[in-house]
């Protein structure tokens, strides 16, 4: 081939690569492309990120799940369940649905449930995904018949309500797959092959590329019928800006990413006039607060903490960055309105309203006075005093830094010097306790997460210790009485264990041009179980589509194997083409 021909060929190659179809249209049915963040493992028992749980929630079934609203529990694998008292013991009986199938066609039985619970109990340090309340006081797991399982708890078991909530975190796994050493050699290992991830949920795993995407396909034998979405591709994304752009130009349908404050405004401008982009807003259950280090003086002094509380107009600070509708004021009792009857909502301004004069008065009383006249107070024994404030956790929004600066400014007004630390090693410092005050985010999932403030809980990094609190918590966990939760929250508020800042109101966009029946709720936002289930088709009406989906599922295996064998070429051909591009000028050069 002469040089001209070669360069022409390369030019054609280049242009055709640009013109290649941007999006593969699905051969049949609804295909959604969704974004999640990076996850470490898809093992349903060891997964520890919300992103993997968003995916696993579609592949595996728990016994009990959150309903469409995300606030009440409803039946999943267990059709019904009941609690019984047998002497001192509590017996929880699950009646499983009959005829539920694993993705490989075998039936789900009580043996699988027993296997899963016992596996979890054997190594709770490694299986960190399920809630430990499930095995708290668990004496025995009995298989009564093929569809009935009984769990016997002693008196240290949690309240019925809390046990129900705990079971929403336990994905039941198939015994026949997990005991097969050829498929899963180590149940605590990271799983990322479709044959390892056999569940009984509405979707089955068709293809996984670690760090890139997971492709799920509707499971036609799902007990509620085939889900409305046929294919869901979960892509890994790390950047909010990219997420915004991809949703705006239609490359993504939704994702577990959200905006607030000015980012939301920018996004709204970006998609203004596009009727296919909707925005779902919900108050997040996460709570951001200003914590005190109880292991240090003067932060262990209630008066000092109150002085700080009086010195800060939290509502003003939060509004400056989140606007009036971007965040809800946090509750001094930790749990936010998300927790319904368990929450006694106590914004800081109601209990300790902004009053800098009162703050100064308390500080004077404590002996913090400006002795050397530099504008900042010294400690009672005349040493310079400075608060070391940690603000940024990795991957967090920039608002926390700004809010930290704002807090420093208000404290300066009452004569306290603050060093704001915005370095990235937040977690190391937080864990080591080398901080005075810190802005920290907590994501409580259930009312019993009030345990984080009991004396010996490893999650209690602030070092708060209160005997009444510990005892009340014990009782609360056992009885589930909302009045006790309110009592706990009052103890926290009266002791000013932290200064509640805000619950962000998250906003996440989704597209309605390819799919309409989104059912977002505050738990998994737009990517919840109910969202992709839509209106499931009952198995009886799907005889015609059944054939097509079986053929696609059988053709799946060879095609995915070809893509792996082609990997070698992937590493070679592209660079080779580029080298040719680069050599082009040399070839064309006049000798």
């Amino acid at each position, binding site marked *: 081939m002469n040089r001209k021909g070669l360069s022409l060929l390369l030019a054609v190659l280049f242009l055709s690569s640009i013109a290649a179809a941007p999006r593969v249209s699905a051969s049949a049915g609804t295909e959604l492309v969704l974004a999640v963040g990076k996850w470490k493992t898809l093992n349903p028992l060891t997964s520890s990120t919300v992103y993997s749980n968003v995916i696993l929630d579609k592949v595996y079934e728990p016994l009990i799940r959150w309903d469409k609203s995300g606030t009440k529990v409803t039946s999943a694998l267990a059709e019904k369940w009941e609690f019984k008292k047998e002497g001192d013991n509590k017996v929880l009986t699950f009646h499983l649905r009959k005829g539920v199938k694993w993705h490989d066609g075998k039936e789900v039985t009580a043996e699988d449930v027993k296997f899963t619970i016992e596996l979890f109990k054997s190594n709770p340090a490694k299986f960190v995904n399920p809630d430990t309340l499930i095995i708290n006081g668990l004496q025995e797991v009995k298989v009564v018949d093929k569809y009935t399982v009984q769990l016997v708890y002693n008196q240290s078991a949690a309240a019925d309500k809390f046990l129900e909530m705990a079971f929403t975190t336990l994905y039941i796994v198939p015994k026949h797959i997990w005991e097969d050493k050829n498929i899963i050699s180590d149940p605590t290992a990271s799983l990322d092959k479709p044959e390892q991830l056999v569940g009984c949920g509405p979707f089955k795993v068709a293809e996984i590329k*670690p760090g890139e995407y997971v492709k799920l396909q509707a499971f036609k034998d799902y007990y509620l019928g085939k889900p409305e979405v046929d294919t869901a591709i979960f892509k890994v994304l790390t950047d909010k800006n990219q997420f915004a752009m991809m949703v705006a130009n239609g490359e993504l349908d939704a994702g577990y990413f959200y905006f607030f404050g000015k980012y939301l405004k920018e996004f709204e401008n970006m998609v203004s006039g596009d009727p296919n982009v909707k925005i779902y807003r919900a108050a997040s259950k996460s709570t951001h607060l200003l914590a005190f280090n109880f292991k240090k003086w003067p932060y262990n002094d209630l008066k000092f903490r109150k002085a700080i509380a009086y010195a800060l107009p939290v509502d003003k600070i939060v509004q400056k960055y989140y606007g009036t509708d971007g965040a809800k004021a946090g509750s001094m009792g930790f749990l936010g309105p998300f927790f319904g009857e368990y929450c006694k909502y106590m914004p800081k301004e109601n209990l300790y309203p902004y009053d800098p004069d009162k703050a100064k008065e308390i500080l004077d009383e404590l002996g913090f006075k400006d002795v050397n006249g530099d504008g900042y107070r010294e400690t009672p024994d005349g040493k310079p005093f400075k608060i070391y404030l940690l603000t940024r956790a990795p991957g967090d929004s920039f608002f926390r830094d700004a809010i930290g600066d704002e807090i420093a400014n208000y404290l300066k007004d009452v004569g306290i010097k603050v060093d704001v630390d915005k370095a990235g090693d937040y977690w190391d410092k937080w864990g080591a306790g080398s901080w005075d005050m810190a802005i920290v985010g907590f994501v409580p999932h259930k009312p019993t997460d009030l345990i984080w403030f009991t004396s010996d809980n490893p999650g209690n990094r602030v070092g708060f210790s209160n005997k009444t609190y510990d005892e009340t918590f014990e009782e609360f966990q056992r009885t589930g009485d909302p009045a006790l939760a309110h009592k706990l929250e009052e103890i926290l508020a009266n002791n000013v264990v932290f200064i509640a800042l805000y619950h962000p109101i998250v906003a996440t966009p989704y597209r309605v041009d390819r799919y309409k029946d989104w059912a977002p709720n505050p738990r998994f936002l737009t990517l919840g179980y109910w969202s992709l289930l839509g209106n499931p088709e009952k198995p009886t009406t799907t005889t015609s589509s059944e054939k097509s989906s079986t053929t696609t599922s059988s053709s799946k295996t060879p095609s995915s194997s070809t893509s792996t064998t082609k990997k070698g070429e*992937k590493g070679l051909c592209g660079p080779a083409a580029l080298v040719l591009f680069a050599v082009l000028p040399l070839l064309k050069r006049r000798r």
Partner: protein
Amino acid sequence: MARGMVSYTLAKIAHRLLTLIFVILIIYTLLRLAPGTPFDQYLYQGKITEAQYEALLKEWGYRDSFLVGAAKMLYGMATFSLFKMKSPVYNKPIIDLISVRLPYTLSLVTAAYFFGAMLGMILGLYCARNRGTLKESAIIWITLGIRSLPVFWLGMVLLYVFAFKLGLFPFLTSSELHPRNVFHHMIDWLWHSLLPIIALSKIYAVSYLLTIRNMVSEEYTNDYVVSFRAMGLREDYIIERYVLRSIMPPIITMMAIDLGFLFGGAVVTETVFNYPGMGTLIYTAIWNKDYPVVLASFYIIAVAVILAITIAEITYAYLDPRIRRG
């Protein structure tokens, strides 16, 4: 002569081995100095108890003394059993993690490397030959401008313009098209990776352009070039036959070092473009204090760099006997 070559090579290899051990020890020390373990998050969230936490730390070697830990790692490297060790974060053999990432990284970085280096060399030569002209200063100014653009910024601009505004390229690097044939697959790969390749090749292009231009210009001031010109030899002939040959050794070293670093991927580019390569693996591993994965990755990079440099040196010791004699 042959014996000189052998002893020279052996001495070099011994020297390199020491370098390798030294590099690994430095990295291991830095890792040990950084606080934190992969299990801290579980502890802080109250998912595991203090006792379980301690047991995990013991099991995964985070409670080993410095010397024991270092000895374990070095032994693992010497026998290559390091790659069979499991990462505490993924609970998976390291070889499984790296073997998935390495092809991605190599394809991206190799392409960028060749594309960038070629472009840089050609433009560098062009500049040297047109020294003092308007064209040359225009190229140099543009180059210096591009050089000062950070890669992450360039990456975001490329994405914004070509992926978002114009819609010509995809945002993500994952290719889902099931290829009909090799050629189709190649185009699909190129379409998905062109933006990161462009962003990354900038680094190579700029450095090679400036180096080559300076070296060739310097070589041009030598008397032999003047006399060849006076003899009426063609400019192309002088460059190919004499100038390029005399500047070859430093360029070979430069290329070899870059070649070795290909195995490390490109953290910034990979992060901006969501590219699942070695760079992001190392980055997250450092975040998670995943000692075995960090060490294994740096081990691969160090071996690759040292190997490439050694080969380069041996090559030009072979080409140029003066180097061999010291």
